[in-house]
Protein backbone atom coordinates (compact mmCIF):
# COMPACT_ATOMS: atom_id res chain seq x y z
CA UNK A 1 0.00 0.00 0.00
CA UNK A 2 1.37 3.39 -0.91
CA UNK A 3 0.41 6.94 -1.81
CA UNK A 4 2.85 8.88 -3.91
CA UNK A 5 2.75 12.47 -5.19
CA UNK A 6 5.35 15.06 -6.24
CA UNK A 7 5.71 16.39 -2.72
CA UNK A 8 5.27 13.35 -0.44
CA UNK A 9 5.15 9.59 -0.18
CA UNK A 10 3.43 7.32 2.34
CA UNK A 11 4.27 3.65 2.07
CA UNK A 12 3.38 0.59 4.16
CA UNK A 13 6.01 -2.13 4.45
CA UNK A 14 4.06 -5.13 5.68
CA UNK A 15 7.17 -7.24 6.29
CA UNK A 16 8.33 -4.96 9.08
CA UNK A 17 4.97 -3.42 10.02
CA UNK A 18 6.20 0.06 9.21
CA UNK A 19 4.54 3.04 7.57
CA UNK A 20 7.18 5.32 6.08
CA UNK A 21 6.42 9.01 5.47
CA UNK A 22 8.64 11.12 3.22
CA UNK A 23 8.66 14.69 1.90
CA UNK A 24 6.39 17.57 2.86
CA UNK A 25 2.75 17.18 3.86
CA UNK A 26 0.82 20.44 3.62
CA UNK A 27 -2.52 19.25 2.33
CA UNK A 28 -5.61 21.37 2.73
CA UNK A 29 -7.88 20.07 5.48
CA UNK A 30 -9.25 16.61 6.23
CA UNK A 31 -10.70 16.07 2.74
CA UNK A 32 -7.28 16.03 1.12
CA UNK A 33 -5.85 13.89 3.91
CA UNK A 34 -8.61 11.28 3.48
CA UNK A 35 -6.51 8.80 1.41
CA UNK A 36 -3.79 8.79 4.09
CA UNK A 37 -6.36 8.37 6.88
CA UNK A 38 -7.87 5.49 4.89
CA UNK A 39 -4.48 3.80 4.47
CA UNK A 40 -3.70 4.10 8.20
CA UNK A 41 -7.12 2.81 9.19
CA UNK A 42 -6.81 -0.21 6.91
CA UNK A 43 -3.56 -1.13 8.64
CA UNK A 44 -5.07 -0.66 12.11
CA UNK A 45 -7.99 -2.91 11.08
CA UNK A 46 -5.49 -5.75 10.58
CA UNK A 47 -4.48 -5.48 14.26
CA UNK A 48 -0.69 -5.71 13.92
CA UNK A 49 0.88 -6.42 17.33
CA UNK A 50 3.29 -3.55 16.88
CA UNK A 51 3.15 -0.86 14.23
CA UNK A 52 5.89 1.68 13.51
CA UNK A 53 5.34 5.11 12.00
CA UNK A 54 8.67 6.13 10.51
CA UNK A 55 8.60 9.92 10.12
CA UNK A 56 12.37 10.49 9.90
CA UNK A 57 12.18 11.69 6.29
CA UNK A 58 9.06 13.80 6.75
CA UNK A 59 10.49 17.31 6.44
CA UNK A 60 7.28 19.20 7.00
CA UNK A 61 3.82 18.54 8.42
CA UNK A 62 1.09 21.18 8.76
CA UNK A 63 -1.41 21.30 11.62
CA UNK A 64 -4.02 19.36 9.60
CA UNK A 65 -1.41 16.60 9.26
CA UNK A 66 -0.64 16.74 12.98
CA UNK A 67 -4.37 16.27 13.48
CA UNK A 68 -4.33 13.17 11.25
CA UNK A 69 -1.47 11.58 13.20
CA UNK A 70 -3.07 12.48 16.55
CA UNK A 71 -6.42 10.99 15.53
CA UNK A 72 -4.66 7.81 14.49
CA UNK A 73 -2.78 7.59 17.81
CA UNK A 74 -6.06 7.98 19.69
CA UNK A 75 -7.58 5.23 17.55
CA UNK A 76 -4.68 2.85 18.26
CA UNK A 77 -4.83 3.75 21.97
CA UNK A 78 -8.31 2.24 22.11
CA UNK A 79 -6.96 -1.09 20.81
CA UNK A 80 -5.26 -2.69 23.80
CA UNK A 81 -3.65 -5.41 21.66
CA UNK A 82 -1.77 -3.02 19.42
CA UNK A 83 1.52 -1.28 20.22
CA UNK A 84 2.78 1.82 18.45
CA UNK A 85 6.30 3.14 17.85
CA UNK A 86 7.02 6.53 16.29
CA UNK A 87 10.45 7.13 14.82
CA UNK A 88 11.46 10.76 14.37
CA UNK A 89 14.51 12.84 13.57
CA UNK A 90 16.23 15.27 15.91
CA UNK A 91 17.36 17.21 12.85
CA UNK A 92 13.87 18.22 11.75
CA UNK A 93 12.46 21.16 13.71
CA UNK A 94 8.75 20.29 13.72
CA UNK A 95 9.51 16.78 14.96
CA UNK A 96 11.56 17.98 17.94
CA UNK A 97 8.73 20.43 18.77
CA UNK A 98 5.57 18.46 18.19
CA UNK A 99 6.12 14.68 18.33
CA UNK A 100 6.17 14.60 22.14
CA UNK A 101 2.47 15.45 22.06
CA UNK A 102 1.69 12.04 20.54
CA UNK A 103 3.17 10.41 23.63
CA UNK A 104 1.01 12.63 25.83
CA UNK A 105 -2.02 11.23 24.01
CA UNK A 106 -0.84 7.63 24.40
CA UNK A 107 1.68 7.15 27.23
CA UNK A 108 2.49 3.58 26.12
CA UNK A 109 3.66 4.86 22.71
CA UNK A 110 7.39 4.43 22.11
CA UNK A 111 8.97 7.60 20.73
CA UNK A 112 12.42 7.21 19.20
CA UNK A 113 14.11 10.45 18.16
CA UNK A 114 17.36 9.85 16.31
Amino acid sequence: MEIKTNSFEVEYDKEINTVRFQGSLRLSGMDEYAPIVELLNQIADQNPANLTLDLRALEFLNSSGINVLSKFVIRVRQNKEMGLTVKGSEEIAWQTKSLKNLQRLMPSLTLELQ
Partner: protein
Amino acid sequence: MAEIFGNFIENFPSSEEYLIIGFSPSSIPLKQRWRNNGLSADFLADYFTTFLPADESEDSSLNQHAEIKGAVSYIANELLENAMKFNDDQCDLPISIALYLGTNNLVFQITNSIPPEAVKPFQEYIEKILSSDPQDLYLEQLEKNALDEEGGSSRLGYLTMINDYMATLGWKFEKLEQKPIGISVTTMVQLTF
Protein backbone atom coordinates in the same frame (compact mmCIF):
# COMPACT_ATOMS: atom_id res chain seq x y z
CA MET B 1 -12.85 51.31 15.99
CA ALA B 2 -10.24 48.62 16.32
CA GLU B 3 -10.58 45.76 18.79
CA ILE B 4 -7.41 44.22 20.19
CA PHE B 5 -6.96 40.75 21.70
CA GLY B 6 -3.90 39.15 23.30
CA ASN B 7 -0.37 40.37 22.80
CA PHE B 8 -0.62 42.86 19.93
CA ILE B 9 1.82 45.74 19.43
CA GLU B 10 0.30 48.70 17.62
CA ASN B 11 2.33 51.04 15.45
CA PHE B 12 4.65 48.33 14.30
CA PRO B 13 7.26 48.04 12.58
CA SER B 14 10.06 48.66 14.98
CA SER B 15 12.80 47.16 12.83
CA GLU B 16 14.50 48.03 9.59
CA GLU B 17 14.63 44.50 8.24
CA TYR B 18 11.32 43.27 6.96
CA LEU B 19 9.69 41.48 4.10
CA ILE B 20 6.07 41.67 2.98
CA ILE B 21 4.32 39.36 0.53
CA GLY B 22 0.87 40.25 -0.79
CA PHE B 23 -1.83 38.19 -2.49
CA SER B 24 -4.80 39.57 -4.34
CA PRO B 25 -7.73 37.38 -3.25
CA SER B 26 -9.46 37.22 -6.60
CA SER B 27 -6.54 36.56 -8.93
CA ILE B 28 -6.25 32.77 -8.65
CA PRO B 29 -8.68 30.30 -7.07
CA LEU B 30 -7.74 29.23 -3.55
CA LYS B 31 -7.16 25.61 -4.47
CA GLN B 32 -4.59 26.43 -7.13
CA ARG B 33 -2.66 28.72 -4.85
CA TRP B 34 -2.58 26.37 -1.86
CA ARG B 35 0.87 25.18 -2.91
CA ASN B 36 2.03 28.81 -2.76
CA ASN B 37 1.54 28.84 1.01
CA GLY B 38 4.37 26.37 1.43
CA LEU B 39 6.57 28.14 -1.11
CA SER B 40 6.02 31.54 0.54
CA ALA B 41 6.60 30.13 4.04
CA ASP B 42 9.82 28.38 3.01
CA PHE B 43 11.00 31.53 1.23
CA LEU B 44 10.43 33.68 4.34
CA ALA B 45 12.30 31.09 6.41
CA ASP B 46 15.27 30.82 4.02
CA TYR B 47 15.48 34.56 3.52
CA PHE B 48 15.56 35.45 7.21
CA THR B 49 18.05 32.79 8.20
CA THR B 50 20.72 34.75 6.32
CA PHE B 51 20.23 37.74 8.67
CA LEU B 52 20.64 35.76 11.88
CA PRO B 53 23.85 36.11 13.89
CA ALA B 54 26.48 33.38 13.47
CA ASP B 55 25.43 30.12 15.06
CA GLU B 56 27.61 29.08 17.97
CA SER B 57 25.60 26.12 19.20
CA GLU B 58 27.26 23.58 16.91
CA ASP B 59 27.21 20.85 19.54
CA SER B 60 23.44 20.32 19.53
CA SER B 61 22.06 18.11 16.80
CA LEU B 62 19.61 20.75 15.63
CA ASN B 63 21.43 24.07 15.46
CA GLN B 64 19.73 27.34 16.19
CA HIS B 65 19.49 28.40 12.56
CA ALA B 66 17.77 25.19 11.56
CA GLU B 67 15.43 25.51 14.53
CA ILE B 68 14.44 29.11 13.68
CA LYS B 69 14.10 28.24 10.00
CA GLY B 70 11.78 25.35 10.87
CA ALA B 71 9.75 27.56 13.21
CA VAL B 72 9.35 30.36 10.62
CA SER B 73 8.38 27.90 7.94
CA TYR B 74 5.77 26.22 10.18
CA ILE B 75 4.25 29.42 11.58
CA ALA B 76 4.16 31.29 8.25
CA ASN B 77 2.56 28.30 6.55
CA GLU B 78 -0.14 28.01 9.24
CA LEU B 79 -0.89 31.74 9.11
CA LEU B 80 -1.18 31.67 5.31
CA GLU B 81 -3.37 28.55 5.36
CA ASN B 82 -5.70 30.25 7.88
CA ALA B 83 -5.82 33.49 5.91
CA MET B 84 -6.62 31.70 2.65
CA LYS B 85 -9.20 29.46 4.31
CA PHE B 86 -11.11 32.12 6.26
CA ASN B 87 -10.71 35.09 3.89
CA ASP B 88 -13.90 36.90 2.85
CA ASP B 89 -13.93 36.57 -0.93
CA GLN B 90 -16.55 39.33 -1.20
CA CYS B 91 -13.98 41.77 0.09
CA ASP B 92 -11.26 43.39 -2.04
CA LEU B 93 -8.67 43.53 0.72
CA PRO B 94 -5.45 41.79 -0.33
CA ILE B 95 -3.96 39.20 2.02
CA SER B 96 -0.52 40.26 3.23
CA ILE B 97 2.08 38.57 5.37
CA ALA B 98 4.96 40.54 6.84
CA LEU B 99 7.93 39.30 8.80
CA TYR B 100 10.04 41.69 10.88
CA LEU B 101 13.42 40.84 12.32
CA GLY B 102 14.32 42.28 15.72
CA THR B 103 17.50 41.78 17.75
CA ASN B 104 16.26 38.65 19.50
CA ASN B 105 12.83 38.13 18.05
CA LEU B 106 10.81 37.69 14.90
CA VAL B 107 7.38 39.20 14.44
CA PHE B 108 4.86 37.90 11.92
CA GLN B 109 1.94 40.05 10.90
CA ILE B 110 -0.74 38.72 8.59
CA THR B 111 -3.82 40.63 7.46
CA ASN B 112 -6.91 39.25 5.77
CA SER B 113 -10.63 39.97 5.69
CA ILE B 114 -13.23 37.71 7.27
CA PRO B 115 -17.00 37.60 6.71
CA PRO B 116 -18.81 39.80 9.30
CA GLU B 117 -20.74 36.78 10.65
CA ALA B 118 -17.46 34.99 11.41
CA VAL B 119 -16.23 37.72 13.76
CA LYS B 120 -18.13 36.63 16.89
CA PRO B 121 -17.22 32.92 16.84
CA PHE B 122 -13.61 33.80 16.04
CA GLN B 123 -13.39 36.26 18.95
CA GLU B 124 -14.96 33.69 21.27
CA TYR B 125 -12.35 31.17 20.20
CA ILE B 126 -9.57 33.73 20.79
CA GLU B 127 -10.94 34.45 24.29
CA LYS B 128 -10.91 30.71 24.98
CA ILE B 129 -7.26 30.40 23.89
CA LEU B 130 -6.25 33.41 25.99
CA SER B 131 -8.05 32.29 29.14
CA SER B 132 -7.12 28.55 29.09
CA ASP B 133 -3.97 26.64 29.81
CA PRO B 134 -2.73 26.12 26.23
CA GLN B 135 -1.39 22.62 26.90
CA ASP B 136 -4.73 21.46 28.36
CA LEU B 137 -6.66 23.12 25.55
CA TYR B 138 -4.40 21.51 22.93
CA LEU B 139 -4.90 17.98 24.27
CA GLU B 140 -8.61 18.64 24.74
CA GLN B 141 -8.86 19.80 21.12
CA LEU B 142 -7.07 16.65 19.87
CA GLU B 143 -9.47 14.40 21.79
CA LYS B 144 -12.41 16.40 20.43
CA ASN B 145 -11.11 16.19 16.87
CA ALA B 146 -10.74 12.42 17.23
CA LEU B 147 -14.49 12.13 17.80
CA ASP B 148 -15.34 14.47 14.92
CA GLU B 149 -16.29 12.32 11.95
CA GLU B 150 -17.12 15.35 9.81
CA GLY B 151 -13.50 16.45 9.79
CA GLY B 152 -14.03 20.19 10.13
CA SER B 153 -11.31 22.67 10.99
CA SER B 154 -8.68 21.08 13.25
CA ARG B 155 -8.14 24.30 15.26
CA LEU B 156 -4.58 23.25 16.01
CA GLY B 157 -2.63 25.99 14.20
CA TYR B 158 -2.56 28.66 16.94
CA LEU B 159 -2.30 26.05 19.71
CA THR B 160 0.78 24.41 18.18
CA MET B 161 2.43 27.85 17.78
CA ILE B 162 1.84 28.62 21.47
CA ASN B 163 2.63 25.17 22.89
CA ASP B 164 5.35 23.83 20.65
CA TYR B 165 7.06 27.05 19.48
CA MET B 166 6.50 29.21 22.59
CA ALA B 167 5.07 32.00 20.43
CA THR B 168 2.81 34.78 21.72
CA LEU B 169 -0.23 35.79 19.69
CA GLY B 170 -2.35 38.89 19.29
CA TRP B 171 -5.19 40.01 17.03
CA LYS B 172 -6.60 43.28 15.78
CA PHE B 173 -10.08 43.54 14.23
CA GLU B 174 -10.93 46.61 12.14
CA LYS B 175 -13.93 47.74 10.12
CA LEU B 176 -13.07 48.53 6.51
CA GLU B 177 -14.41 51.69 4.92
CA GLN B 178 -16.48 50.02 2.25
CA LYS B 179 -19.96 48.80 1.38
CA PRO B 180 -21.12 46.16 2.05
CA ILE B 181 -19.39 46.07 5.39
CA GLY B 182 -15.96 44.44 5.53
CA ILE B 183 -13.85 43.34 8.49
CA SER B 184 -10.09 42.91 8.50
CA VAL B 185 -8.16 40.82 11.02
CA THR B 186 -4.45 41.25 11.63
CA THR B 187 -2.80 38.41 13.51
CA MET B 188 0.54 39.08 15.17
CA VAL B 189 2.82 36.23 16.20
CA GLN B 190 5.98 36.95 18.16
CA LEU B 191 8.77 34.45 18.38
CA THR B 192 11.71 35.02 20.72
CA PHE B 193 15.05 33.31 20.20
